[in-house]
């Protein structure tokens, strides 16, 4: 089986094209069914996220479809000009396809290096294909190995550690400060876009109460409605500061709105309970000296962005270790796939030849039952010839029918597998007697059927010495 990967990602295509090729869960299932209806022998998994859409396909070697055929179908289905599509699509085959999948599952190909969400998305894509029995003996172990490798990266390296957005870093600070959030009050000062983005992260912590204070009450109410929060009077800020355990501040004020003196009174009224302040305004809303007060943990935009930069650097430094792990896992996976495939092939070959041998043995036994002892040798010779002819019939017929390039590969394979190179060399040094023709062979019994169409002309090396071990 050959593995193919065809797809596009944020690295090769703009969002306008990515969204045209993106598939929902239902569309993914339909697409798998449609492609398998066109090519029934294939295995297929489709991974479609906001940043990539990829088709992972396994098919018998040198059979349809190839990457161009799939590209043609995609161009037709999504009504995108073929040249444009071929410009943004990449494709990998074999081990390169396996390595690409492992990199994707490990988050090494993601927009946010080391992100964990992709592992779940790969798992969902595999499960969707599995539900349609589209992931068979090739893609099933491949995706299992990819998921295991993705998990391994996260346990053995720090590729997934550290937050990479200002809002999530602020939330991380809150988690390190507070144990429970259900009894905490979150106060937002300002109702702009930045506040909303940061509040979106904090809302995941499910604080007990969210208060929104803004000069414009309407805007405060609008933002409060989106987060089940309470809009409060901006001019009673001092009272709200006392109640707040977490404060997110982003107003458009040109000077600090909260002074150290004011906040000292707030701390006293709060009975020194710790408070976290996220001041993402520019210029800052809180006087910097407030950070020196006991029980106050004040973070401004610079602090948060510095942490983001540290985390990004840490993830980048883990990339090399991740790639080493991926390379090792890819080699193991490919070796496993090859041995599975070979095992199945050998079993099938053996069954086929055993069936054939059994049929011939039964025929020979029937004939021998009515033959005289003098005829035994001739009959056994005939049986051996018939068996060899039958075994070689399909391979030699296929060799003759194959296209020139392909027949050269097949011929090389036959020489290698049957060790005919050594025998050819021996024959060249010591030319053997001319090959026996059909007239030289003992005349078969008249009741025996003719051999099945196979030419008896043997190749020069066919009767050479036995292959050395």
């Amino acid at each position, binding site marked *: 089986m050959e593995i193919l990967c065809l797809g596009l990602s944020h690295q090769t295509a703009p969002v306008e094209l990515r969204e045209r090729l993106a598939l929902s869960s239902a569309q993914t299932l339909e697409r798998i069914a449609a492609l398998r209806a066109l090519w029934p022998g294939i295995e297929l998994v489709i991974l479609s996220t906001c940043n990539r859409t990829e088709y992972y396909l396994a098919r018998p070697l040198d059979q349809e479809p190839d990457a161009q055929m799939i590209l043609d179908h995609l161009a037709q289905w999504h009504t995108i000009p073929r040249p444009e599509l071929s410009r943004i699509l990449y494709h990998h085959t074999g081990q390169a396809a396996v390595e690409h999948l492992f990199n994707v599952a490990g988050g090494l190909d993601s927009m946010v290096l080391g992100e964990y969400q992709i592992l779940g998305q790969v798992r969902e894509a595999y499960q969707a294909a599995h539900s349609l029995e589209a992931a068979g003996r090739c893609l099933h172990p491949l995706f299992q190995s990819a998921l295991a490798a993705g998990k391994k990266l996260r*346990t*053995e*390296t*720090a590729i997934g*550690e*550290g937050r990479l957005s200002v809002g999530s870093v602020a939330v*991380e*600070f809150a*988690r*390190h*400060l*507070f*144990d*429970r959030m259900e009894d905490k009050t979150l106060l937002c000062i300002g109702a702009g876009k930045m506040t909303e983005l940061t509040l979106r992260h904090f809302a995941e912590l499910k604080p007990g109460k969210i208060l929104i204070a803004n000069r414009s009450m309407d805007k405060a109410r609008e933002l409060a409605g989106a987060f089940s929060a309470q809009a409060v009077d901006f001019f009673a800020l001092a009272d709200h500061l006392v109640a707040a355990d977490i404060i997110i501040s982003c107003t458009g004020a040109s000077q600090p709105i909260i002074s150290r003196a004011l906040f000292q009174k707030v701390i*006293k009224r*709060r*009975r*020194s*309970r*710790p408070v976290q302040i996220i001041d993402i305004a520019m210029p800052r809303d809180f006087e910097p000296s407030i*950070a020196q007060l*006991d*029980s106050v*943990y004040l*973070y401004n935009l610079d*602090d948060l962005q*510095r*942490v983001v930069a*540290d*985390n990004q650097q*840490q993830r980048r430094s*883990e990339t090399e270790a991740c790639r080493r792990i991926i390379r090792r896992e890819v080699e193991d996976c490919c070796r496993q796939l090859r041995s599975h495939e070979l095992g199945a092939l050998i079993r099938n070959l053996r069954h086929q030849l055993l069936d054939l041998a059994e049929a011939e043995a039964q025929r020979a036994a029937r004939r021998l039952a009515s033959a005289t002892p003098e005829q035994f040798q001739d009959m056994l010779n005939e049986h051996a010839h018939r068996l060899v002819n039958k075994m070689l019939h399909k391979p030699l017929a296929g060799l003759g029918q194959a296209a020139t390039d392909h027949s050269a590969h097949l011929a090389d394979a036959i020489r290698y597998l049957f060790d005919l190179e050594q025998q050819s060399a021996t024959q060249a040094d010591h030319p053997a007697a001319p090959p026996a023709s059909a007239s030289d062979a003992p005349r078969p019994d008249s009741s025996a059927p003719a051999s099945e169409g196979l030419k008896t002309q043997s190749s020069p090396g066919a009767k050479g010495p036995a292959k050395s071990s």
Partner: protein
Amino acid sequence: MTLPKDIPTTLGLAAASLAALAACALAARRLLRPAMQSLRAERLICIVIMAILLFLLTYRIVRFTDAKGLVHSHVDGILLLATLLTGLLVYFHAPTRMPAVSLFFLPVLAFWLLWGFCASWWSYEPFNIVGIWEKVHLVTVYLGSMAVAAAAIFGIMYLFLAARLRKKRNFATLDRFPSLEAVERRILRSAIIGFPILTIGIITGLLIQNAQRPNAADWLSPKILLAAAIWLVYGLMIHLPFLPIFRGRRAAFLSILGLVILLVLHRVSLPAAIQGVPPAQPPVSRGGA
């Protein structure tokens, strides 16, 4: 070189000390490396230490326990403390709890075990305990010390975490620790557990002192004053929720102060425990019959 008074005890404490030092190294390595490290080795070592200490405790109870009670000597007291601390460590090592605390608990455990090893070899002396109050006093002193030590360890952890949070750098280290609020709660919990035990210890100590018919100056001995100081410190700490001035870093400093006073108190009171309580002086008669 003099041989240890009891070789199995010394050998056991030596083995436990080495294991604790190895666990300390593993915990430090886990803190310094950014990638997640398995806790399995540390957990296993803590369980092995626990097994050694439980065996030693049982052995010593069977061999040495008599009328003197559970704490036969200072070595037994240290064994008891170390066993309780190891039990706490094993508890915190459970996955849903706070495995990172071992970084702070293990050095204290290693210190106590080494102290016990040295005491068992070079300065071993049994306590001279006679009455029931002495026995109760000794047990509560050691149990109370355990609570004081736990509070101090959490106090040190609090200061470490608060400093890291104020430093505002990446959280690879902090991810393995509980939140600041959780640590402060544990300081309070240790104080709440330790305070009644210390109170019983002080009361029994006062009863012992009173039985010796002391004069006024005896009540102002360093031992009593230090004991009173610890009791006051922990009395303040259990009121943390109501005394905002002692919250946060101040609570951490108080807990560490309590441990320092306790260590001095141990040093001061150990010789007296070894000598034992002198018999009560007969009352001075005031005139003849």
